[in-house]
């Protein structure tokens, strides 16, 4: 186990769920971690950080079934300026939908990046209902899985983990509706207004 670098690939990194997952990870991981948000301007700095670490954890959301552009662009920068010693890469991804398996394509993209660029691959944690789980009674499930995920990285016994809210899909649909209705209320926007069928009305 050595030092671990956490890079947040969410476009809203400072206010992201990914950041909260990263914080829980840091508190579970035995050794020091260093955390950075990926931004448009800090690619060279982060590429240099990567050169001095033995393990890098990418935390990010699923965007349109794939990697968010923020992360994709960073990976391209890293490909162009690779470190001499390649750290192992682990992935903590969260998505809005209930099924953690919906993250699978993005995880495969990370694996492909690692294969193409010769980075050892570490552990994976896929979180479903990632927008809501931390503020739900099921937060403990996420924390528990993050702890197991962190242990697997610390011990070098890599594995794939997943978690989500243990709700029937119909109930999740209802819970999501009230989550978004409350979200809209903050802006004075009603459920009916949010349900508009018009695009660019």
């Amino acid at each position: 186990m050595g030092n671990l670098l956490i890079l947040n690939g969410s476009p809203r990194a400072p206010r992201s769920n990914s950041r909260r997952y990263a914080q829980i990870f840091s508190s579970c991981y035995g050794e020091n971690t260093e955390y950075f948000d990926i931004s448009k301007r800090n690619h060279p700095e982060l590429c240099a950080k990567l050169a001095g670490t033995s393990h890098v954890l990418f935390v990010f959301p699923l965007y349109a079934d794939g990697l968010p552009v923020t992360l994709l662009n960073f990976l391209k920068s890293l490909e162009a300026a690779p470190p001499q010693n390649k750290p192992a890469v682990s992935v903590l991804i969260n998505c809005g939908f209930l099924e953690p398996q919906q993250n699978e394509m993005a995880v495969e993209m990370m694996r492909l990046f690692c294969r193409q660029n010769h980075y050892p691959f570490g552990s994976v944690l896929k979180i479903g209902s990632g927008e809501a789980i931390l503020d739900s009674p099921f937060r403990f499930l996420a924390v528990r899985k993050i702890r197991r995920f962190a242990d697997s990285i610390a011990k070098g016994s890599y594995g794939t983990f997943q978690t989500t809210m243990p709700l029937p899909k119909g109930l999740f649909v209802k819970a999501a509706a009230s989550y978004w209705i409350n979200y809209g209320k903050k802006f004075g926007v009603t459920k009916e207004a949010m349900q508009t069928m018009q695009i660019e009305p």
Partner: protein
Amino acid sequence: MTGCNPGVIRIANAGTLPFKFRKVYKIVYYCVPLSGIIECKIQNGAYFDMKLILSDRPLPLELSDHPDVVCVDLTRLKIANCVGCFGCWTKTPGRCVIRDDAVKVYPLIAQSETVLYVSRIKYGGYDTVMKTMLERAIPVQQAFIRIVNGETHHVQRSVVPKDAVILAYGASDEEEQALFRQLIARNAHNMNFQSYRVLFCREDQVPDLVQTEVAKWGIS
């Protein structure tokens, strides 16, 4: 854009069009590549199948005789990254809060029955130019969730079901192609594809393959 026919109603952009309007009026879109501005014209007539080509590289196509086809060269548009604010679901539903060229494109995606997406592949997914646009297209969905094929997905706004062809170039090997195919199968649920085909080629083959595809639409 200049040169609109007399009697043609001009509206600022396609997205202002109520969905049911489409059934009554004929909609003709033009993309003005230089300014990156898309203009919509409405003519009396029957509803017809709108076709959209969305490309991450310029395409040598002559489409002036085909008003039902719009070709958008994304490299000529100014499109910022989605910032994940969910404003398009919760603050100004159906409208992105970033008022750049993307807001002219996602209504076109929503209204097209046939789409041809041309994109470079990177790490088994769309490369930056196309992916940036697709991320900015989430105003076409609602925040609310429904169950599709046993999985949770968003409710769509007025998004016409689509026959999609994805022309992907620059894949490094078959493994990358296989991953991209799986991605499109997943996208189909979220992007309302009723059918799709994925084609792979080298970059230099793109113009010919695009010609072959649009020939199937009766464009030579």
